[in-house]
């Protein structure tokens, strides 16, 4: 029975008919659809299965397309970070940081960012990397049936979100990074709470490793599942933990250091097997490396210092000076009403996000709004390799593969 409806055409009841492929022997076309407990978001994988084996898998994305890049083109330069932060909602600060680094490069003030601002930016990036890996480990464990790590991970993430709330004001999208540095300095009780998180991290990580790392069931379900060779990883342009689990140690923090990352010593965890278990180990080691960086940043945060470039043409003047000096008031009003202008040009700025190389290709034509903000979405390319990996595997293994690739659909669908 072949029904060659055009793929995705709307049917009369308003649903979406998918392309029903030729059915020779007892194959079945199944839509692991947008609403599915273990697709880590709104992913639809149209799988042609023979019993439990998958013979053809074609992921369909776009179910969370938010038109973020179009919205960014209609907002001021500093307003655009509101929508851009909502792209990768597991590590919003990494998105904002990458976008603002690109804008600062266009403005030519990237060398002037005060050191304390860079330290806090590195601290926030590493904290959001740990928080994002916690969500991945929690939900990935549930896919395999391990419920306990979910509670351990989200409790650790809760402590980190408290830090974001204390510094930036909001748990998930604090909008704390601005052009030229930060919105304002860290609150005074912040460093004490940071020490509490650093102290709590080590025992919690030992529990998490104890729960899963040598667990035979977990190992059976993840070893030799979704093997990606180094050559395939480069051909499918995978980056981040997925690439490093296949043996190539490409980390943007080492290759193109930004925000003072070359000042910290940390190493890049690499494995060569390239299967789901290797990706699991790489991400766990990466969380330890992030904590190592956080300890080094913690020492540097004691010294007070400015967190914003003094040039009030780009960064709003401190609130208390507005009532005093006429010029500060004018600058403040000009920035709020029509924002600053960025000289024309285009730039590609990359940052090492939890999912891989997150890049922003920002184009400006001298206007007070970005002309084009193109995002290089690491999780879209990491997810695309599912087409090749899922052939011949069991459906249960495909769920493990999706979890190990760690896609975030705000970023895949933009």
């Amino acid at each position, binding site marked *: 029975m072949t029904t060659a409806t055009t793929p995705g055409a*709307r049917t009369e*009841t*308003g*649903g*979406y008919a998918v392309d029903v492929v030729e059915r020779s022997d007892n194959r079945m076309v199944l839509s692991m*659809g*947008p*609403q*599915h*407990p273990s697709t880590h*978001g*709104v992913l639809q994988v149209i799988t042609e299965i023979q019993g439990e084996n998958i013979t053809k898998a074609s992921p369909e994305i*776009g*179910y*969370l*397309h*938010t*038109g*973020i890049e*179009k*919205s960014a083109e209609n907002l001021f330069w500093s307003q655009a970070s*509101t*929508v851009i932060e*909502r792209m990768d*909602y*597991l590590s919003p600060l990494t998105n904002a940081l990458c976008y603002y680094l690109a804008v600062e490069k266009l403005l030519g003030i990237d060398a002037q960012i005060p050191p304390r601002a860079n330290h806090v930016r590195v601290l926030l990036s590493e904290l959001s990397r740990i928080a994002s890996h916690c*969500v991945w480990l*929690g*939900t990935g464990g549930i896919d395999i049936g391990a419920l306990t790590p*979910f*509670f351990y991970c*989200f*409790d650790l*993430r*809760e402590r980190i*979100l408290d830090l974001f709330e204390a510094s930036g004001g909001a*748990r*998930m*999208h604090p909008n704390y990074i601005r052009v030229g540095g930060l919105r304002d300095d860290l609150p005074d009780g912040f460093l004490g709470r940071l020490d509490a998180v650093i102290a709590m991290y080590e025992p919690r990580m030992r529990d998490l490793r104890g729960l899963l790392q040598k667990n035979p069931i977990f190992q059976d379900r993840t070893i030799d599942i979704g093997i990606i060779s180094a050559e395939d990883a480069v051909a499918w342009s995978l980056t981040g933990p997925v690439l490093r689990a296949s043996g190539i140690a490409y980390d943007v923090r080492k290759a193109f250091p930004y925000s003072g990352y070359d000042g910290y010593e940390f190493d890049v965890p690499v494995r060569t097997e390239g299967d789901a278990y290797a990706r699991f180990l790489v991400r766990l080691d990466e969380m330890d490396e992030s904590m190592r960086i956080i300890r080094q940043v913690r020492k540097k945060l004691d010294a007070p210092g400015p967190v914003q470039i003094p040039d009030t043409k780009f960064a709003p003047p401190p609130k208390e000076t507005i009532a005093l000096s006429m010029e500060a008031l004018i600058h403040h009003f000009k920035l709020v009403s029509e924002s600053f202008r960025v000289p024309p040009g285009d730039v590609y700025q990359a940052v090492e996000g939890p999912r891989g190389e997150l890049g922003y290709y920002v184009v400006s034509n001298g206007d007070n709004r970005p002309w084009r903000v193109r995002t290089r979405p690491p999780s879209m390319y990491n997810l695309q390799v599912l087409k090749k990996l899922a052939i011949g595997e069991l459906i249960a293994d495909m769920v493990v593969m999706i979890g190990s690739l760690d896609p975030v*659909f*705000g970023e895949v*669908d933009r």
Partner: protein
Amino acid sequence: MALGSGGDFLLTTVDSVARWAQASSVWPLTMGLACCAIEMMTATAPEYDIARLGSEVFRASPRQADLMIVSGRVARKMGPIVKRLYDQMADPKWVISMGACASSGGVFDNYAIVQGVDTIIPVDVYVPGCPPTPDGLLYAVNLIQQQIKQGGRGGILARA
């Protein structure tokens, strides 16, 4: 529930017992869309623990769920699917529109986002915030429970 005069039996209407049972086990449907889905998951995590309200069982299929939490922005491609899931849920059913994007399109006033999920399906409780804190979601589930107990939809005759 009025205490019986005999003292040893509780006399109450069957309807309020049904409403008490329905209110204390409002099972949500796993339909996480965007950032609010992460806050919904955090609501089930130990810190906020939606299990205290009896709603920690997130059913994957709409047939077994009676509360749909639209958590996140609804894209135009996802709209018909949300409508279809709502139709396939068994009555009586309730809807929480979690977050600004689900309630009104939020910061995304553009071509790709449905400007408020109430243009597609009837909504019972709107939760403000972008994303709302898990406390906001717990309070929304409380409001749903109050709606059930105070005689809205539900009860033994399941007036839809």
